[in-house]
């Protein structure tokens, strides 16, 4: 299939679906508060853009911050665990507890601790907790998958611990780390949104709040516009992290090599 078709085909499907949607809603006279036509959503996206953008930036700040902190913390802990069984035995169970406890369940607690007028911090903490575990577990797998032969080679030439880490363990773990971070990027956004839903109003004014508020006011076009921005953001995060992964692994990793 040619490059053109690969772009054209999904675009065509999208246009068809949107047209069918628009026509069906008009012909069947579906009330706008049940299902708005795409045209109304587009109008809302333009007219409400300033306030929606404010909310998007609020959510995006939490997402990006949580993603970065989760990545740093996850990789750091993975390095610690990879070098110390003792640390792993002592701390891993708690990392698992954080992973298996639904964020919705601990959100009220965290919000209570930070105070309702400090919702940003609460959301930031919650999103970080959600995003953190995949980075940890993938990176740990990476640091544990270092080739034994290469390890021996480094020992043969008397490599110091820093050289082993920097020139062997880190590159070996990189593909796994990036895979974990790709999952974490999506989870950070989900965490930021879900936590905001739980937080309710407060001082939080992210996209989740826009969706709730639009729903309460039966302003469906704006609700859809907010949703659209939300999934667009998710796609953007995924594309950005995939691009980073491609850039870092393009020369050597099997997953990035085209059949040539």
């Amino acid at each position, binding site marked *: 299939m040619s490059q053109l078709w690969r772009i054209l085909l999904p675009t065509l499907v999208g246009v068809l679906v949107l047209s069918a949607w628009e026509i069906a809603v008009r012909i069947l006279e579906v009330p706008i508060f049940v299902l708005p036509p795409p045209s109304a959503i587009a109008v809302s996206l333009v007219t409400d853009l300033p306030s929606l953008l404010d909310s998007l930036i609020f959510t995006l700040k939490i997402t990006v911050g949580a993603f970065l902190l989760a990545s740093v913390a996850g990789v750091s802990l993975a390095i610690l665990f990879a070098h110390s069984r003792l640390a792993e035995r002592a701390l891993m169970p708690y990392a698992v507890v954080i992973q298996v406890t639904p964020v919705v369940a601990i959100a009220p607690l965290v919000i209570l601790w930070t105070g309702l007028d400090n919702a940003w911090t609460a959301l930031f903490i919650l999103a970080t907790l959600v995003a953190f575990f995949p980075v940890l577990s993938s990176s740990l797998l990476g640091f544990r998958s270092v*080739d034994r*032969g*290469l390890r*021996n*080679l*480094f*020992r*043969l*030439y*008397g*490599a110091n611990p820093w*050289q082993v880490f920097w*020139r*062997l363990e880190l*590159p070996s773990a*990189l593909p796994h780390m990036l895979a974990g971070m790709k999952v974490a990027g999506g989870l950070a956004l989900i965490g930021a949104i879900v936590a905001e839903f739980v937080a309710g109003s407060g001082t939080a004014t992210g996209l989740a709040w826009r969706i709730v508020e639009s729903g309460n006011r039966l302003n469906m076009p704006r609700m859809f516009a907010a949703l659209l921005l939300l999934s667009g953001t998710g796609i953007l995060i995924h594309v950005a992290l995939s691009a980073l992964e491609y850039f870092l692994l393009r*020369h*050597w*990793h*099997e997953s990035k*090599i085209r059949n040539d």
Partner: protein
Amino acid sequence: MRLDAVGKRFANGYAALEGFSLALKPGQFTSLIGPSGCGKSTVLNLMAGLSHPTSGRLDWGQAGKPDIGFVFQEPTLMPWATVAQNVALPFTLTGRHAAMDGACEEHLAKVGLAGFADAYPRQLSGGMKMRASIARALASRPALLLLDEPFGALDEITRFDLIDQLLALWLGHNFTTLFVTHSITESVFMSQRVVVMGGKPGKVLADIMIDEPYPRLPSLRAEARYAAWCGEVLEGLRRAT
């Protein structure tokens, strides 16, 4: 350089070697042959310092422990680094950047990989990866080269090619070589001396000198004396069972 009544018992109680002695003459090409699990690789690891004997000792003689090159069963190249960076690793890790000038290019050329310096390992065939691995082991001009069944995974044509190349390198630089192998013909064709190992824990069963001048030509493989040496090694291996 010699191993003196060396024993190696692993943490799980398994004794790989017991009272094993082997002396290597400087510059000699020695093959170590034996069935799987007889402790051949353990001997190499002890010499390389990758593990330590639980009894006995290593005696390096007056010169002290030499620089060692090691060729593993697998090419063991870093997939994220270019061929040149892989070959330069011994210099990078030991910080002897000054000694590196030209040494890597020179050795890449010697193993027939000139022009592949900037390639990544995945772009190379199995034989070429092994060549890169040999270039890396030799680039720092070690006095002792240890090889652990390096050609086991290669097809015969590539293997003969690499054997010729390794012999040419050895003739040019005369490093002491200990070549661990499963292949009787390989050991006889390459070595001045074939040490047959066997038993659990492993011990020396036969020590055969191959008195044949170098360079050894492929036609040697058709000679009667070559077959006789192979028979002698085989006889030694039979004693293992």
